């Protein structure tokens, strides 16, 4: 632990109306770890560079992931953060907690770690930020005693996450929380023991608003959708009209296919032309809601730009029933076929999105046994370079 803490640069971040993480950290600066974190961060602010070493291999016995090793590059100056590992704890579906449960975790973390956290990490885990190698096993034991387990890291299934879904949203087209819980539990081995080509993230959103950013940030986006007609409560429409709300400008003209019309106080939707974009439902929540024939669409391959450029997920299955009665079997089946094909033909550090781009959608669909459909594309090929596979042979004529 270094001398008295002086952080003139960081102190500037105590100013202003937004909650200050520096103020918060300083409230714990009596702890050597937090004090040295602040000290090293002040130095970073002064020198305009980070002072962490490239990760190291630390972990929990029997687990291949869940801990990110971190060491200070200047431990002489800041011995309190010579070790500063993070522990990823698998959050509950929908990030729901009770005060009691959270407090229990905080007790463990105050005892064995820095007392700092990320609530939550970008993938969804509860991130306990900063501890030493020797504290890892005690933390793990105490967490599991309270029914908590680790999240993912490395080339494994990452902690699946989901939107609030049916727990508090009238748009939810399937039970995102149940499916997340189910998948997380069914694939504990894939989550805890890295053996994939690269990470595999699953995010579940109950409708195309995609409140978990699944299309952009997950290898597998399971997004709620409906097949039949949008449900309309015409009396609520009449109330919107009466209230002076400009349905024409804010709903009808914004509909991407212009398939909505308002006749007097009655709203009509040509559902055969509806793209399920959800805009009208968003703007008129009291009057509109998704249809009754509900399920999910599955898209694969969303990711950040490293290395081949960012990708949004590609629609693979336009509609699948999410059937809790059936133990979500259809989803498991598909997921396992995907993993199998990716495992066999994917390259090291190749995300599923890059894999599909490399082997082509055609080959990928064949590989996982899904039919080609015009729904999977925005347009058929515009180049004439077709690999025909059926020929006439001399003999057959």
């Amino acid at each position, binding site marked *: 632990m270094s001398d008295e803490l002086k952080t003139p640069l960081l102190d500037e971040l105590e100013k202003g109306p937004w909650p*200050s*993480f520096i103020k918060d950290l300083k409230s714990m600066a009596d702890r050597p770890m937090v004090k040295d974190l602040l000290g090293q961060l002040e130095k970073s602010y002064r020198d305009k*560079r980070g002072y962490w070493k490239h*990760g190291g291999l630390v972990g929990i016995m029997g687990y291949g992931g869940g801990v990110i090793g971190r060491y200070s590059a200047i431990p002489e100056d800041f011995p309190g953060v010579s070790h500063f590992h993070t522990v990823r704890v698998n959050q509950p579906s929908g990030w*729901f907690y009770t005060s*009691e449960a959270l407090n229990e975790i905080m007790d463990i973390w105050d005892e064995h770690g820095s007392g700092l956290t990320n609530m939550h990490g970008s993938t969804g885990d509860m991130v306990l930020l900063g501890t030493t190698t020797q504290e890892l096993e005690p933390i793990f034991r105490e967490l599991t005693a309270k029914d908590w387990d680790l999240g993912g890291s490395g080339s494994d299934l990452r902690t699946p996450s989901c939107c609030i879904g049916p727990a508090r949203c009238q748009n939810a087209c399937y039970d995102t929380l149940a499916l997340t819980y189910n998948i997380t539990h069914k694939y504990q081995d894939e989550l805890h023991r890295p053996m994939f080509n690269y990470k595999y993230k699953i995010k579940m959103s109950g409708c195309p608003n995609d409140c978990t950013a699944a299309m952009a*940030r997950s290898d597998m986006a399971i997004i709620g959708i409906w097949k039949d007609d949008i449900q309309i409560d015409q009396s609520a429409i009449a109330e919107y009209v009466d209230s002076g709300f400009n349905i024409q400008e804010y709903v009808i003209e914004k509909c991407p296919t212009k398939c909505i019309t308002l006749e007097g106080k009655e709203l009509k939707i040509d559902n055969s032309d509806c793209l399920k974009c959800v805009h009208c439902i968003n703007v008129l929540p009291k009057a509109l809601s998704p249809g009754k024939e509900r399920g999910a669409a599955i898209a694969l391959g969303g990711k950040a730009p490293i290395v081949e450029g960012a990708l949004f997920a590609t629609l693979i299955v336009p509609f699948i029933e999410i059937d809790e009665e059936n133990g979500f079997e259809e989803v498991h089946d598909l997921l396992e076929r995907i993993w199998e094909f990716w495992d066999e033909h994917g390259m090291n550090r190749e995300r599923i999105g890059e894999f599909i781009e490399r082997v082509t959608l055609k080959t990928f669909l064949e590989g996982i046994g899904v039919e080609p459909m015009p729904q999977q594309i925005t347009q058929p090929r515009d180049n004439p370079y077709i690999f025909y596979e059926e020929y006439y042979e001399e003999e057959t004529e």
Partner: protein
Amino acid sequence: MATTERRTDIGPPHYDKFLHPIIKENYGKWKYHDTLRAGVLVHVGETGSIYTVRAASPRLISTNFIRLMTGLATKYSDGYLRFTSRNNVEFLLGNKDNIDPLIKELSDNGVPVGGLNNSISNVVHTQGWVHCHSAATDASGLVKVVMDELYEYFVEMKLPHKLRLAVACCLNMCGAVHASDIAILGLHRTPPRIDHSTLPNLCEIPTTVASCPNNAIRPTSIEGKTTVKVDEDKCMYCGNCFTVCPAMPMADPLNDGVSIWVGGKISNARTEPMFTKLAIPFLPNNPPRWPEVTEAVKNIVEVYAKNAKPYERVGEWINRIGWPKFFDLTGIEFTKYHLDDFRYAGTTYRRSMHNRY
């Protein structure tokens, strides 16, 4: 508190036990929601209503902060709370009358309520100098200074539509930078510096060579040891080599900095999802308060606020007015760096006569 038996692969606890009784009852049976005021929602179910108060959080928070939140939850929301996918804290209240006292106490503790609907919500961000070896800037600090500047847009709902911000500290973009209305991205601008003394021990040569998307890395031999060299003309500073090989650090205090991106979105509402596009190629790292960055972001937000139509996200607004007008209105300089030169560059060239004059 250690137990004797070692439990593994138990997975997370069932969410069921964290759900407020009113939520349990109305699970999947919500009729509609309404916004009561900035930061406060009501969801009306078949047998009752649940009130949500959304409070800001710096995300990098201590157990002190969390205990403050759980304390408030115990007091006002029957002990139930949750976090959102953008790291806000949501209190789920069965009792409407608790809304005001809760907000007051949050406010007394410096925690604002807001982020709903046509406002700026919390910033999706990353580790930065606080924890990551790869960072070209600090994420938590940037979020703090930017949100100080944009505070009014969090606590009031006065923008044309939702505005989603993201910050990432390196090109790995651990978060939503590639699909946000406005994003701040830390980046390196110089090739890795190779530590030939440690590289042969620390790194696998083939993996290192393969890591480079631009084939800029070649094996070479120095003093009899196999190491690598970098063709600096081909390097676009992505840092992927550093991810697989610690002996190729990227940090360069003089040249690391920040870039600004605009017009991404994730939802399928109205338009398909859109990637964020380059607005400002480089601003210097100027901690602790990055004045160039806050000014640049605030400028874009204000120009958007003034010019976009209701329900128009930043990207939709720009698509309507066209990029030339965007650069015009914001006063941002258009440079050669804005011209794409990566894999799908050709798809961004204007191949028509459609232009405003």
